[in-house]
């Protein structure tokens, strides 16, 4: 709090309103432009009590518009609030994304939660602490600088103390935040910077009701949807009489190609769904691209070319210097699934003209807006409450299943309706991570430095989230379907399909273009890290090719082109902890990769060792070592857990995963037709080393490993085989083909 602010005892003893007035006098109310400069999401909601409330009993409630997705955000937010408020973490009650209670912080996505919400809550908590100190100073008629907050109380020398409960009055925190906060220094941290056990894990390992899937409400009924057999199928006939006669069946809901059944019992709903599936007749149409010729298909789609960067050196046609060498390569990636372990689930209840939905959407506010459009309801009549689901890793079926639930619940007023998708529905109907093609061409000068870098990527947009109702799958199935607007290309600092398409390396010439494919032959959306996974895989694979051409060590070659000291630090640490100079056993290879996520979030370098069974083409990552710099660290073990998970998930994507389809149907329908990592292929060790950056901003760590892990694996494989794979996934067939080519 600014020392210019004086709170008199009279002000404090008067009503809360008077207190606000005194602040309004002491400190000018921030203008809208000033509010925009408030730290993190405080710019969206500048009143402190939007984030923190302390009741008359001293109980602290913290509100975040972000949601727990299994990434540990609840725990980190509690650590942050406890630190700056000077209270025990266990004493904090945390409320997460809820349209009636929290600030609208948009999506919990893009590794933004600590940057946006963590920063807001940290600053709000620090300002609340200083307000409490100020109030105590006024009460005791002493200077605030003589006081400090500790353990939920303001203390003065001589043992005097006032608990927060004694200092708060109604509206006490209904005060606008200031741009500057008196943040605690890293060396004074009690809670931040230390590994704290996740607050959500005990319930998850003891059978607590931890997920929306576990929600039970009085009178709740169970619904299942029947999806079309293929994306372009049309429902042509349905005799549902037998299904209606089944035990427990309450009703069938049909609207165009949208079909669902409701029953009293969950398994009754499943049985009815199966029978209804058999009873439905569909006319199917071929609408899918050719699986076997996907890269050529993508390259031939109409594209809008957007320039991501065009920096330095002359046109591509300029004659290269003598003795320089130009290399080029093409990389591809298949469509890939989020493939959450738990199929998407939601509960909806229509009461009068009000609707309540419990769901695991990453954005309960934007999803609510889509539901309002879908149902033609005022948005304020919908209360959306985030309730945890299975990990999503981006835009999976979470938003769609809420639409299913409300379309059914609106036909059953007063009855809570729970819908859970079946496995095949999750696999076939989630929006996939887009297939991509990238082409890179680079010129090495005589000193073995990259002089010019040209990179093009072909991709659909990576964000098809609600917003609009048409983003919701069920809305597209209705008799009067919502039709999505054509996607528009937008180049932003964070990027989408073009995320991380600009190398962080200091190349004199950098030219990057996104061939933006707005036609979506298969529905796609955000998969953890968006384009960064493919772009970093391409860039970092090619860096190894260039290093080899320059006859340089892969790590040394990267360092030669890296100026950012924090980037150099993670590269050097990962190399050292891996023992990069060490020799590999036969049929083993080592690989290295680096990226700064979005070129503005966490720095992450990964070294890994793979072994290859030449006879079968089976690859195994033997060990991985990562170094990550996420700025100021809140929960070290949380960052480690996310990074370990990112490495293993990316390894699974890279080695095994491709959505299969024929010209009409998605044929990856379960775990046998869409295999992922199993324990037999898990590495012997994965070590994550953190570089603390005291006093630096939070950078967001949840997605930093996806790209580097894929590229490190590709580079290790090239090292082991002497042949490079440039097409994801590195199936055994592709490995064998490379070996015997």
């Amino acid at each position, binding site marked *: 709090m600014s020392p210019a602010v004086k709170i008199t005892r009279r002000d404090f003893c008067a009503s809360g309103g008077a207190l606000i007035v005194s602040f309004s006098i002491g400190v000018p109310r921030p203008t809208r432009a000033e509010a925009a400069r408030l730290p993190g999401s405080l710019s969206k909601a500048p009143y402190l009590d939007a984030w923190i409330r302390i009741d008359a009993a001293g109980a602290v409630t913290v509100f975040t518009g972000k949601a727990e997705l*299994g*990434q*540990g955000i609840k725990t980190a937010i509690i650590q942050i609030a406890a630190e700056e408020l000077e209270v025990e973490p266990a004493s904090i009650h945390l409320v997460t994304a809820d349209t009636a209670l929290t600030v609208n912080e948009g999506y919990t996505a893009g590794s933004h939660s600590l940057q946006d919400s963590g920063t807001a809550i940290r600053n709000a908590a620090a300002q609340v602490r200083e307000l409490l100190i100020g109030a105590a100073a006024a009460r005791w008629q002493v200077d605030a600088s003589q006081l400090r907050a500790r353990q939920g109380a303001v203390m003065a020398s001589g043992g005097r103390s006032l608990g927060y409960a004694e200092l708060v009055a109604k509206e006490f925190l209904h005060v606008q935040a200031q741009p500057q906060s008196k943040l605690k220094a890293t060396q004074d941290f009690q809670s931040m910077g230390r590994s704290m*056990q*996740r607050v*959500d*894990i*005990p*319930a*998850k*390992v*003891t*059978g*607590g*009701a*931890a*997920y929306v*899937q*576990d929600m*039970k409400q009085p009178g709740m009924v169970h619904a299942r949807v029947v999806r079309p057999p293929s994306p372009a199928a049309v429902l042509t006939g349905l005799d549902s009489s037998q299904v209606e006669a089944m*035990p427990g069946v309450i009703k069938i809901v049909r609207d165009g190609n949208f079909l669902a059944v409701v029953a009293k*019992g*969950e*398994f*009754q709903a*499943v*049985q009815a769904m199966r029978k209804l599936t058999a009873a439905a007749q569909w006319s199917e149409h071929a609408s899918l691209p050719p699986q076997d010729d996907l890269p050529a298909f993508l390259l031939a789609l109409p594209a809008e070319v957007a320039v991501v960067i065009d920096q330095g050196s002359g046109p591509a046609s300029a004659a290269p210097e003598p003795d320089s060498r130009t290399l080029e390569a093409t990389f591809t990636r298949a469509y890939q699934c989020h*493939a*959450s*372990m*738990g199929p998407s689930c939601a509960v909806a209840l229509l009461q009068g003209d009000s609707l309540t939905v419990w769901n695991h959407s990453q954005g309960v506010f934007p999803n609510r807006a889509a539901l309002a459009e879908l149902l033609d309801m005022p948005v304020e009549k919908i209360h959306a409450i985030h309730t*945890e*689901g*299975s*990990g999503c*890793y981006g835009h999976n079926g979470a938003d769609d299943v809420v639409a299913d639930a409300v379309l059914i619940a609106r036909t059953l007023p007063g009855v809570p309706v729970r819908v*859970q998708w079946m*496995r095949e529905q999750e696999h076939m109907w989630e929006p996939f991570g887009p297939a991509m093609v990238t082409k890179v061409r680079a010129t090495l000068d005589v000193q073995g430095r990259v002089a010019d870098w040209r990179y093009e990527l072909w991709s659909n947009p990576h964000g098809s989230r609600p917003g609009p109702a048409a983003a919701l799958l069920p809305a597209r199935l209705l008799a009067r379907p919502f039709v999505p607007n054509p996607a528009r290309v937008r180049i932003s600092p964070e990027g989408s399909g073009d995320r991380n398409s600009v190398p962080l390396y200091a190349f004199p010439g950098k030219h990057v273009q996104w061939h933006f494919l707005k036609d979506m032959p298969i529905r796609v959306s955000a998969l953890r890290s968006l384009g960064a996974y493919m772009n970093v895989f391409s860039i970092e694979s090619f860096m190894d090719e260039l290093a080899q051409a320059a006859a340089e060590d892969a790590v040394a070659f990267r360092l030669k082109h890296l100026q950012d000291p924090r980037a150099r630090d993670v590269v050097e640490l990962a190399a050292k902890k891996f023992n990069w100079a060490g020799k590999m056993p036969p049929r083993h290879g080592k690989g290295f990769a680096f990226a700064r996520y979005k070129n503005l979030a966490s720095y992450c370098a990964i070294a890994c060792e793979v072994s290859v069974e030449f006879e079968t083409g089976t690859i195994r990552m033997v060990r991985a070592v990562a170094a990550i710099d996420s700025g100021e660290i809140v929960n070290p*073990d949380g960052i480690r*857990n*996310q990074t*370990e*998970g*990112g*490495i*293993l*998930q990316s*390894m*699974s994507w890279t080695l095994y995963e491709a959505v299969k389809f024929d010209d009409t149907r998605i044929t990856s329908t*379960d*775990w*046998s037709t869409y295999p*992922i*990592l*199993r*324990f*037999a292929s*898990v*590495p012997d*060790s994965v070590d994550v080393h953190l570089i603390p950056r005291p006093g630096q901003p939070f950078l967001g760590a949840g997605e930093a490993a996806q790209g580097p892990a894929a590229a490190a694996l590709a580079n290790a494989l090239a090292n082991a085989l002497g042949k490079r794979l440039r097409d994801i996934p590195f199936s055994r067939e592709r490995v064998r083909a490379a070996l015997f080519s």
Partner: protein
Amino acid sequence: MSIRLNVNGHEHQVTADPQTPLLYVLRNDLGLNAAKFGCGLGQCGSCTVVIDGEAVFSCVTPIMLLQGRRITTVEGLGSIESPGPLQRSFIELQAAQCGYCIAGMMMRAYALLEKNASPTDADIRRSLEPNLCRCGTHMRILAAVKRAAELRQVSAFR
């Protein structure tokens, strides 16, 4: 059909279609949340429970087979107030991200530890092979099972 089920040492009388997979009865009739619906196909292990000492996919096991069998779920391993060795080890090693698969992992591990009190790393990997995790928590799950074996031995000697 009415059937008696022994779950975590308690007898329950359940009335349901005999084909009903055990998973639905556990979750909806008995209010036991731990076992999860993941695939309904016996492919992922989120629904794993232990029946007479064997790890079983409860999503594909009809209740008509279960009269007189001893069924154990995560709720039978301890409680949030008094967690058992597997629960303690998973908390200690923070062996969860979203956690949806974890109850199934714990039951698969429980079946292993009941048979083999000191499993090797290879034993643990082999036993967990049927279960999938999407968050990539595998390293911690392996470590937590190893740690649970130690905790069980400490308790046994006490």
